[in-house]
């Protein structure tokens, strides 16, 4: 009786449809795994590409702003140049002062100013971080790094 049951189970395990299903299952597993990896890869590269594009646009914007800034500074200097200011002053009825026409007043505690400190705003680019490696490495490089770091 027991031998017969074992025989039936053995026959069931070796049934052609069951073997075929195992093959199909394995195949599907490979396909699904590959698809998942491909989807993950696509997602990562898409994000990297989007970030790359944003960086390019920001870089362009920075350059444009820097150019505009330099242009405005030069235009301002043109408008306040010695010759322009002098002719404007004369138009407005001013004339150069003579030494005898000046009044000097003693102001206690007044310190003659040193030449203007022309510190520009801090250059933020010097402190900018390098791009995170997630944006530049491939999936294989990422996996390799994880393996080398023990999963971290």
């Amino acid at each position, binding site marked *: 009786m027991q031998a017969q049951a074992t025989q039936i189970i053995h026959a069931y395990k070796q049934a052609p449809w069951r073997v075929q299903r195992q093959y199909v299952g394995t195949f599907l597993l490979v396909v699904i795994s590959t698809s998942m990896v491909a989807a993950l890869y696509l997602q990562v*590269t898409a994000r*990297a*590409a989007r*970030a*790359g*594009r944003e*960086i*390019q646009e920001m*870089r362009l914007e920075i350059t444009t702003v*820097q*150019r505009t800034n*330099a*242009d405005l*500074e*030069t*235009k*301002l*200097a*043109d408008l*306040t*140049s*010695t*010759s322009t200011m*002098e002719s404007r002053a004369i138009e407005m009825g001013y004339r*150069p*002062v*003579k*030494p*005898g026409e*000046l009044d*000097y007043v*003693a102001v206690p505690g007044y310190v*003659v100013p040193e*030449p*203007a*400190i*022309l*510190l*520009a*705003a*801090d*250059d933020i*680019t*010097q402190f*900018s971080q*390098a*791009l995170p490696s997630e*944006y*530049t490495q491939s999936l294989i490089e990422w996996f390799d790094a994880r393996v080398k770091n023990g999963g971290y």
Partner: protein
Amino acid sequence: MRQQYAIRSLVLAAGLAFVGLAIVVQMIRIQNSTQAKIFISQGDLYAGEFRTFYPERGEIYDRNGHLLAGNRTVYEVGVSLSQVNDPQTLATTLGQYLGLTYEQVYNQLTNSPKSWEYVAVQDYVGEDTVTALQQLIQQKESAGDKSLNGLGFKPHFQRSYPENSLASNVLGFVTQDGRGYFGVEEKYNDLLAGNPVQVWVPSDPNKATEIPRVPNGTTLVLTLNRDLQAKVENILDQSLTKYGAENGAIVVMNPKNGEILAMATTPRLDLNNYSNYFSVYDNGSQYNRSIGMAYEAGSVVKILTMAAALDAGTVTPQSTYVDTGSIDVGGITIRNWDRQSWGQQDMTGCLQHSLNVCMAWISTQMGPQSFYGYMERFGLGHPTGIDLSGEAMGRLKVPGDTDWYNVDLGTNAFGQGVTVTPLQMLMAASAITNNGKMVTPHVLYSMLRDGHQYNVPSQFAGSPIKAETAKTLNQMLTTSLEGESSSALLPGYRVAGKTGTAQIPTQNGYDDSHTNASFIGWGPVDDPQFMIYVWLQKPNISIWSSETAAPVFSQVAEQTVVLLNIPPDAVRAQLVQK
């Protein structure tokens, strides 16, 4: 049958496996072959490009924050040849807007080598022109007209000088290749230009690249006072006209720290049109006469002779000399400027009447070793070390030189046979105003980089004379200037100084009809805050510096005290008391 089928299947499978394996082996072999490396490197050429990011050139300001040299955007106007629809319209439009002929542009568009993708039609095009062209393109495109397809604009920086020719001799200029010439632009070219960064930029937009940090060039703050510079240049230009001088130079320096407050020379160059350089100057030494052109300055050198003699103890202010109108030195007779004898004179009188004979006597009393030792310590014959390019060092002949003769000891004492630049004289004379310490002149006040300001410390160039000597001579020069009622005097302020009228050496001896008129002076005497050197080359209204350079000194001093807020002596004394 079944077994035969199985064998065939096995053979077929083995055959296919072998073929597959062979393909894999071949793939590996090809990928690791030398040809593959060449192919990969060739492929890499199209995978991106090395792009050089040039930093914005550092700006230059005066000491009060006025921009003297900046940058502005200009454009390269070019055409992408593969996108051109209508070369005739493009040629007509660009010719009209860029001032080119139709043929020039049309030839560029149609006759360029086939491998060319892009052709630059004109560079350094101004913003106004480019804006007008961009508006035209927009108008045409909105009307469906694609005749200007392919036209593009690449922006980049160009050096700009808002003050045009102001302080051109100090600033120098930058050519289109980005290199600085003359003045600060050349001396500090590396600092101003910064460091270009080369980066590999992939063509594949999916590959994000690191943003290169391209720090701007270092910004420089000069010691110049823009308003004083403008006034001094104006006075110099008017003086040349008034006195009929060929050229000239005026330098204003702070004698306490060597800061150059103004440095005017002629001719000057509009720095925004530097291509006129060759029509303005014959040689580089003319670009900044204050430092680049050494000349026989004449009697202004007498203050150094007197300083040396006082310091060495050869004479005192009370020492007397009986001037007979001539003296024999090295077998040559030396005479006074007026060929007259002035009788008994003390040392202040020798300076006041600018007696050549007295000075020659002093130097012979000192002896060549002592006299030339002092002159060398004053820096004659050596560059001052100012931070401007193109400095000349003048010539001080000394015993032992093949062209030195005994008479030179006498003539050098009153400024003949020795060549100096105006700046060398200022540096040497700074010892008289500065308790014997000589300052190194400089134009750089500070540097700005990465949000930090680095101030340039003042430097001393030695102490050629003692503090006591300096004070004594300062007083003697004040007295001598006041004693002759000089036109250099400035009402309300005590100033000291010395004239210098020098004949001009030629190949046939000295030119009797032309002179170099000079004046060196400083004030206020009790607390010198400015030191001025005036040099007028060949004035034709009068050959005497007392009638030309001296009044110019007074004019410059008047503007200097106003712009530097220096109260008159009486007012200053009251303010100090309070």
